[in-house]
């Protein structure tokens, strides 16, 4: 069912899109070098960094994919987001300080830069860049798909354009995000992230309480869900609808795999003063937890309302959040939340456009022993190319937003987390182990994902996994295994030749 266009919601969306466009124009005047474009001149305060980290991490995946997945599989889906209780501390302890200190001593803009600096291996760094590009296409695709679904619901384009509605809406959203990402680079990115982060927190908290009120309170919603035929008691059992291996696999990938997410690691390079790391876990943890309330609130309210007969069952679970907002919230609140959801999607999309373009114009050429002459210009061109490719990928991949996001998150996690997290904390890890670990994570994740999804070549075997086992969890564990095993198997006398600055930072 397509709801009629709500002028307040449309107005909010238009104002929001105009505001971020204005930030892009403002930031364009402050982006004069590749350092400005890729790491905002390394001149960002901790509040801005914390909000930028939070809003880059939380995206259409959390704001639209989350409620959709919760509608489909119940509280088992929460295993994806509940690690936010401790992951900000994990991130800062395990890699945050060392990333920031290294970025103060060396020219480091990207995660492949860190790999190159730590292992002195162009092969490892090049592989990391390939992993970043592949993961970026998936993550960016999920954002652009979420953006398209949201825009077509806000502007009611489906009634007008039919099947062309989603691609048209994806193009409209992409044009705005590409504009401010190309014009203002990371300067635009981080300042829009702060505005977007604040909007996300306010929107999520308000909608959580409104969702509780709409569904009759938490307990009433829970009881409606478990007593309904459509959902039943398993919907509120953490291991009720998904196998344990899937649910706990989500937890593993989204907790530990966070250490390989370039859009989060990247933010540590921008921090002006390393001492301001002190309260970042608290700010990131609290703001992320506030945002997760939208997953929990709408994720419970929509099945409860369906169970109570007050809302029609959803044909596409990804429409849970927008459908709830359009049908059950007053225009002004829906407008605010739609702007918040747009913010969540666009802040992540612009981070990935920046990271992906850096991988294309800096990291890959560097790994091949070449250097692009005008990184700023080519960085901007790469942003456009990435956006087009990712949108096409997402449109034809045809999966739930949360599942495309899981694939992309898993790619980063499996390829990069062990080499970064263990490598920055154990000097014995050498380039061979890191290269093998990155290759293992990437190949196993892509291979398993491809075999489990492809239907074109019937002669190919399906993925050799037991039912419910996540490809991302298997590839992450395999990547850790390879890194640690190869390091232990290398002779103790064969200590890697560390860069003196890396050695210094690893011993602080």
């Amino acid at each position, binding site marked *: 069912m397509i709801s009629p266009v709500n002028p307040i919601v449309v107005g909010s969306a238009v104002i929001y899109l105009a505001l971020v466009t204005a930030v892009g124009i403002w930031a364009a005047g402050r982006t004069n070098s590749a350092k400005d474009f890729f790491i905002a001149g390394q001149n960002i305060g901790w509040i801005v960094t914390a909000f930028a980290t939070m809003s880059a991490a939380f995206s259409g995946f959390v704001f639209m994919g989350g409620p959709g997945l919760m509608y489909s599989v119940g509280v088992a889906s929460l295993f994806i987001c509940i690690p936010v209780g401790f992951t900000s501390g*994990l991130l800062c302890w395990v890699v945050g300080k060392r990333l920031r200190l290294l970025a103060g001593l060396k020219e480091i803009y990207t995660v492949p830069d860190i790999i190159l600096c730590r292992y002195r291996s162009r092969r490892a760094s090049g592989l990391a860049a390939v992993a970043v590009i592949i993961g970026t296409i998936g993550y960016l695709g999920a954002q652009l798909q979420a953006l398209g679904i949201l825009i077509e619901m806000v502007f009611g384009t489906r009634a007008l354009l039919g099947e062309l509605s989603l691609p048209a809406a994806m193009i409209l959203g992409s044009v705005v995000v590409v504009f401010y990402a190309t014009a203002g680079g990371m300067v635009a990115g981080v300042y829009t992230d702060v505005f977007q982060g604040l909007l996300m927190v306010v929107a999520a908290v308000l909608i959580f309480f409104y969702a509780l009120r709409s569904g009759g309170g938490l307990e009433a919603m829970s009881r409606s869900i478990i007593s309904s035929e459509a959902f039943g008691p398993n919907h509120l059992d953490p291991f009720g609808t998904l196998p344990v291996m899937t649910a706990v696999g989500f937890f593993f990938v989204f907790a530990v795999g966070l250490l390989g997410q370039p859009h989060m690691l990247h933010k540590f390079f921008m921090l002006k003063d390393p001492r301001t790391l002190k309260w970042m876990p608290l700010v990131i943890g609290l703001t992320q937890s506030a945002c997760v309330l939208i997953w929990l609130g709408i994720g419970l309210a929509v099945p409860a309302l369906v169970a109570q007969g007050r809302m029609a069952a959803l044909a596409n679970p990804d429409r849970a959040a927008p459908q709830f907002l359009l049908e059950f919230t007053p225009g002004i609140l829906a407008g605010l939340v739609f702007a918040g959801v747009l913010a969540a999607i666009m802040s992540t999309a612009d981070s990935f456009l920046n990271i992906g373009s850096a991988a294309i114009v800096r990291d890959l050429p560097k790994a091949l022993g070449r250097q692009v002459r005008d990184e700023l210009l080519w960085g901007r061109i790469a942003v456009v190319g990435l956006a087009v490719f990712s949108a096409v990928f997402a449109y034809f991949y045809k999966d739930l937003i949360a599942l495309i996001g899981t694939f992309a998150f898993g790619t980063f996690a499996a390829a990069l987390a062990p080499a970064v997290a263990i490598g920055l904390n154990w000097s014995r890890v050498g380039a061979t182990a890191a290269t093998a670990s990155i290759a293992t994570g990437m190949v196993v994740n892509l291979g398993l994902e491809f075999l489990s999804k492809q239907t074109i070549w019937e002669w190919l075997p399906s993925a050799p996994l037991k039912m419910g086992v996540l490809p991302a969890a298997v590839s992450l564990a395999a990547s850790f295994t390879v890194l640690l095993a190869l390091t232990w198997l290398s002779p103790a006398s064969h200590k890697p030749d560390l860069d003196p600055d890396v050695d210094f930072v690893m011993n602080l």
Partner: protein
Amino acid sequence: MARRSALLFLGLASPAMLICSWSSGFIAELCFILLVMAFPAALITLAVARHGLGPLKVPLAGLIIILEVGGVTMLVLRGQVLEGPWFGAFPVAASIQIYGLWLGPLLLVALAYGLTFDRWELPEEDLRRFNARRSGSDGDNKE
């Protein structure tokens, strides 16, 4: 000692998780949960225990206990939504997931990081050495 134990755990847990992924039954699920829930604390230990765990012993032990006990209890309570007790508007397993695994570690971990930062994570002496090195490297590398 703590770092070695963490490395040993990580080295054994990773292949053990792969084995669990290709096994079935309650024991495999239990082992998978136990390994996954201890993994974050092992990584933190590897990163922070250069000179022992110091003031982080208690918060890290707290994190492990919350995650392990929470994970195992949810497994044991699987399938008992209708007959089991309720807490905080949810069946008890879901409330452990929401209030325990999500909200439980939130303040514990973030406050432990902030409150121990100046004397354990980045003490003044380390910062002074870093700034001195950075001043020396300004001409060579960057900035």
